[in-house]
């Protein structure tokens, strides 16, 4: 596949540049803080989509990768004076490897059993970390101010980390796109449709599932490292927030599972919606309710999400938007 000849590739590049440039040009910190959340959501949704949308395995605990990445990074940077770059890469690699090993086991489970196990894993890891003294137990890890020095002080470091998060966002979309257009992706979609039939057709389902589970852990872990480095601290409840995990599912469903555009648009929309609800007085307490109603409405009336609806209205869109 000639990547540079594909319009969708350039669309990903354009969106990434937009996120990178919009706040940077005017040094707009408020916009940056909005977009960082948007970018994180897109990263989580795009990677979760590899499991839910491509493979048909509902990972309720995908946030465990984000949290582990955050913890590993802050532990390396804060406790062992590593630089940020090697720390996030190692955190991503270790999390991905853990996911691979874990996947060999839990991916033998299907349907509701798998979903339950993923919740169990996230909760087990959260409770473990909350009791794990080297990582600060329930108090978590605080980064000393000196950690930002190597990057030219906190002000400059926050901008750098923002751009890195946007880069990870672009990479997440690119990975989602490349997987979808690959033989590997074709095998995943076959598993989603009918795992037993896919195996009879020659798809090595156990290996494919484990690989995609592991892949879906890498970039969220890196993003977790960057995000919590930016925050300067990490605690178990924020790192392994099961709610965010489920919100990521809402984003994927909102945009349309199985499509790259859908996951990204769903995430960005959800972030806007959430932001809107939080700022409207009287509604801020109800954002969970509204998200719940929204999810229920999508499931009942538009299971294909936004992209499903768009594709039905304009079938030719299928050729442009992945």
């Amino acid at each position, binding site marked *: 596949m000639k990547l540079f000849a594909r319009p969708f590739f350039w669309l990903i590049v354009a969106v990434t540049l937009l996120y990178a440039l919009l706040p940077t040009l005017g040094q707009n910190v408020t916009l940056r803080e909005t977009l960082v959340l948007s970018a994180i959501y897109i990263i989580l949704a795009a990677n979760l989509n590899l499991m839910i949308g491509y493979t048909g395995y509902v990972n*309720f605990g995908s946030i465990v990768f984000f949290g582990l990445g955050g913890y590993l990074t802050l532990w390396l940077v804060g406790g062992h004076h590593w630089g940020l770059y090697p720390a996030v890469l190692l955190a991503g690699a270790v999390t991905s490897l853990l996911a691979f090993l874990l996947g060999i*086991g839990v991916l033998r489970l299907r349907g509701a059993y798998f979903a*339950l196990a993923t*919740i169990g894993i996230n909760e*087990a890891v959260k*409770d473990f970390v909350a*009791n794990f003294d080297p990582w600060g137990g329930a108090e978590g890890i605080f980064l000393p101010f000196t950690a930002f020095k190597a990057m030219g002080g906190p002000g400059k470091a926050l901008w750098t980390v923002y751009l890195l998060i946007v880069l990870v966002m672009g990479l997440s979309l690119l990975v989602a796109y490349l997987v979808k257009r690959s033989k590997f992706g074709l095998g995943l979609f076959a598993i989603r449709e009918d795992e037993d039939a896919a195996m009879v057709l020659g798809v090595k389902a156990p290996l494919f599932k484990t690989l995609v589970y592991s892949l879906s852990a890498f970039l969220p872990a890196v993003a977790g490292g960057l995000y919590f480095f930016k925050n300067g601290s990490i605690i178990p409840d924020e790192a392994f927030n099961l709610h965010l995990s489920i919100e990521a599912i809402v984003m994927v469903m909102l945009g349309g599972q199985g499509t790259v555009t859908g996951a990204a648009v769903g995430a960005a929309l959800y972030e806007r919606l959430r932001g809107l609800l939080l700022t409207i007085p009287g509604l801020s307490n109800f954002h*969970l309710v509204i998200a*719940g*109603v929204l999810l229920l409405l999508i499931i009942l009336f538009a299971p294909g999400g936004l992209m499903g609806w768009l594709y039905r209205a304009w079938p030719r869109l299928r050729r442009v938007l992945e």
Partner: protein
Amino acid sequence: MPEILASVLDGLLIGLVYGLAAIGLTLIFGVMDVVNLAHGAVIALGMFAVYLLFGAGLHPYLGLFVVALIGLAFGVVVYLVAVRPIINAPPLMTLLSTFSVSMIIIGVGTAVWSTSPYNVNFPVTTLRILGYTVTSARLVAALAAVLVTGFLYYFLYRTTLGKAVRAVANNREAAELMGIPSQQILAISFGIGTALAMLSGALIATLFPFTILSGGIYELKSFVASVLGGLGNPTGALFGGVILGLIEGSVAPFIKISWTNVIEFVIFVLILLFFPTGLFGGRR
């Protein structure tokens, strides 16, 4: 040694309440293959229901009867709105729809009660049984759990409606061919499962302080208990709950209480992996 035995006894009693909660979850799964992710939120609703009734002057133990009826009605409504339209869709859909119900309940609950703790403050005595000290509340909660379970079994095995529930659980199509109105049965089963969850929440509220988020931990305990007993198997779920309570009771004197969750979830994942049909055999 006596402290350990007392702790184990406490665990056994609370385990029966976990078991009751787990039966609510496993019954719904057994009848319609739906994992009810609103389970925890419903447990929390049960806590607040008994709290409100107590505030209105009703003794918590009398309040249980009202809570059961509210649970039945609420469960039927949830079924009709969020489950029935997608009962034949892939399992992901019912997982998500019941989860959305959970978000709505927790959201409304947070807006109304915030997330600060509440408790049902009624006189509790301590009893000495065979030399062990037990609070009356714990004893009554365990007894109530056993009675409700017994009542459920009477219903399932001795009444026509209960037999219809079992028939639908066994094979929905065949039951329909026999003239059983399966949609009504599914709605009633969801109602019963919800009522059991609310009852267990109400019982827990007589023992400990609670918040609107407290249901979450009991939902997870229900998963662990019902998976231990085999998803879809009510007796298994009760035993699963008891095992869970016994584990908690026997490790409590030795380690920090927060480690018990880690142990439980590790057991949970291991059981799912190696005994996916549970220790007592379930439905797959």
